Every structure is written in C-alpha cells, then in structure tokens.
C-alpha cells in the first residue's frame, strides 16, 4: 500500500471515521441517518449506497472542477448527483426490491443529502480526483458505521432480532421480557445519536462546545 496511501491521504480517509465524522461532528446527512435505522438491513444498504454515490460524485466533480463556471456550480453538482442516485435507485429496484420499498423516498433524498453537497463544495471542488475519491469513501464509511450502530441497537431492542433473524431467545419472552416498542419510533433514533455524540465528545475533549 505504501505509496498508494500517503500520510495525507490516510488522514483524509481516517478523519471522517472518527474526529471529523459527517454525522456527529459535521452534522451532515442526518435526515436519512435517522429515518432508515429502524432495522439493520435497510441501514446497511443505505450506508453502502451513500458511500458509492459520494465517492463517485466526488470523482466526477473533481474531474470537472476547472471547467464548471462558479455561478452555476450548485446546479451542475445537483445534476451529477441526481444522475448517480437514479442509477443506484434503479439497480436497487431491480435486484433488491423489498429493501428499496422499505427505503422508499429516502433513496431519492440522497440527492439532497447534505454530506454530498458538503463534500463536493468543501473537498472535490479544490482537490484532485484520487484524493476526492478517498475523501468520499472515508465520509461514506463514517456515515455508514454510525447508521449500522444505531440500527443494531434499535433492531435488537425494538424487535429482538438482527437482519430479521430473532436473536433474543424465546425463553426470555416466556419469563416476561417485552420488546421496547419505543425503539422503533422516530424519537429513539435521535436519542441514540445523542448518546454516540456524548461518548465521542467525552473521549475527545477538543470536540466539546464552549
């Protein structure tokens, strides 16, 4: 790997996984992160889709960055992203129809996912294609792991299963254990994100506000 990943590239890739995480630190792309995490499977599919779209749109915009007129750059970015999202959405409809139904409008909403616009504006417009690709991958993974962690807890405690397979043993239910219905409802997603932020910020003092 040596030459392929220089010190700077490594920082670009690893930063978003922790100290520069798109969700908990940059506060980007929260809408979909919260809405698709009631179960693990759609969360994972969403994470992968966003990673692919961020990485490739970063590359495309980075290749075009010297030819895009400044005044219409937002529209150019939106069109590139919308085209990529359409491709991903058609692929999902063809090969994973049930997941695409579960994700409903949130696949389309990747277009307006702030991670995309944020990364395109902040990174791809000013960097070379390879670095932009790594940045896209890093931010995509940073987004995906938060989604997976939230979905893990919500599905485990909310429906007692993981990836749709029951995990909590029948015996426990016979002894009176009940699934926590609140975990499935929207507000718990917010509280779980708040918990992740809490843990992350108490470990990294420099991220704390005031």
């Amino acid at each position, binding site marked *: 790997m040596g030459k392929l990943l220089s010190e700077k590239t490594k920082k670009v890739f690893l930063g978003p996984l922790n100290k520069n995480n798109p969700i908990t630190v940059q506060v980007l792309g*929260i*809408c979909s992160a919260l809405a698709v995490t009631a179960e693990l499977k759609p969360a994972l599919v969403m994470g992968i889709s966003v990673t692919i779209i961020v990485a490739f749109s970063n590359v495309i915009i980075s290749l075009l960055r010297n030819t895009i007129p400044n005044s219409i750059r937002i529209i150019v970015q939106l*069109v590139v992203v919308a085209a990529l999202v359409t491709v991903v959405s058609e692929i999902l409809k063809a090969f994973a129809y049930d997941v695409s139904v579960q994700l409903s*409008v949130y696949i389309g909403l990747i277009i307006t996912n*702030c991670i995309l616009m944020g990364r395109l504006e902040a990174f791809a417009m000013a960097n070379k294609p390879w670095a932009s690709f790594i940045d896209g991958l890093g931010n995509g993974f940073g987004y995906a792991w938060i989604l997976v962690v939230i979905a893990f807890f919500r599905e485990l405690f909310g429906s007692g299963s993981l990836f749709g397979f029951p995990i909590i043993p029948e015996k426990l239910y016979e002894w009176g254990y009940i699934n926590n219905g609140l975990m499935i409802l*929207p507000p718990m997603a917010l509280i779980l994100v708040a918990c992740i*932020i809490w843990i992350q910020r108490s470990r990294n003092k420099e991220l704390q506000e005031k």
Partner: protein
Amino acid sequence: MEALNIFVKSIFVDNMIFAYFLGMCSYLAVSKNVKTSLGLGIAVIFVLFITLPVNYLLETYILKEGALAWLGPKFATVDLSYLSFIIFIAVIAAITQLVEMIVEKFTPALYNSLGIFLPLIAVNCAIMGASLFMQQRDFAHLGEATGYALGSGVGWALAIVGLAAIREKMEYSNVPTPLRGLGIAFITVALMGMAFMCFSGLGIPE
C-alpha cells in the same frame, strides 16, 4: 374538505421533522435563535408552496406511467418516472433561484431577512422530500397537493421556531459539557417528537 384535512394532518401528524426527519441539517444548524429560524421557516413555506404544485403538475401530465396519454394513444404506455429525481431537483433549484430574484427585485426588505437562506433551501431535504412523498401518495387533484405543501411547510416552521425558543432558554442551564450544543439539541428534538406523537389520529371528521 379533503385538502383541509391533509393540511392539518401534515402539520401535526405527519410532521416533516418529527415523523420523517426531513430538513434536519438546516433545522439543527439554524435553530439557535428565534428570529432567524422564523425567517427560514417562512422561506421554506414559501418555496414549498410554489415548487410542490409545479412538481405535481409535471408528475401527473408528464412523468407518471400513462401520463402522456393526452399526446395521443401512442404515448399511453410511456413511463418516464425514472426521470423524476432529476426533473424534481431541477425544478426546485430553478424555482428557488427565480424566487430569490423576484423577492430581491420587489421586496428588498423581505430579501434582506430571507436573503442568505433562500439559496440554501434548494438543498433542503424537506422540499425534495415533500415532492417525493407527493409522488408516493398519489393526490387526487391540485388542491390536495397544495394543501399538503402548505401543511408540511407550516409544520416545519412550527418545529424550528419551537426548537429555537427552547435552545434560547437552554443557554442558561447547566448541561454536561460533552452534550452541550449538538447533543442536547438532539435530545430536545426527540422529546418534542414524543410530545407531537400525542397528535396521532388527529383529523377533521367527514
């Protein structure tokens, strides 16, 4: 009547923020004081009110399967729905730009208070989300779509003004340091969401 019902429901029951988390990014970023958040709320209502009916017409007469039947029997089976993402976002970006120019020209006072927010709205998920929900719900006529647009806009504005008011008060309270700012804002939104849940089932009786 049905349109009024949809209007009320989309404010309280299907609230953009509390039920679908749409427009969260600007919701959390701009809700630090009541005045600016009110400005952004009004801008969102305004843009939704214009873009959603336009997208509804495009959807019914051009994009939907069989929507092109008015061109002649040959077009009755054409399905252009795979183009909807690109068309919707283009309409939203174009109309936001247009609204910005019109507001700047005719009401400079309003422009000065909304100015910075208008371009941001093009990438607000609430606007795009409303168009996609409109596509999914298959409204019967333009009135219902307009009612939905207004309702979701008002619901979003209500949510952001509420959060901003709470956050202004929270300045004086002693929150654990790691939770300050973003963390506590998330928890506040969650609690507001739980409070809004008691509206579920609300509607105007036929």
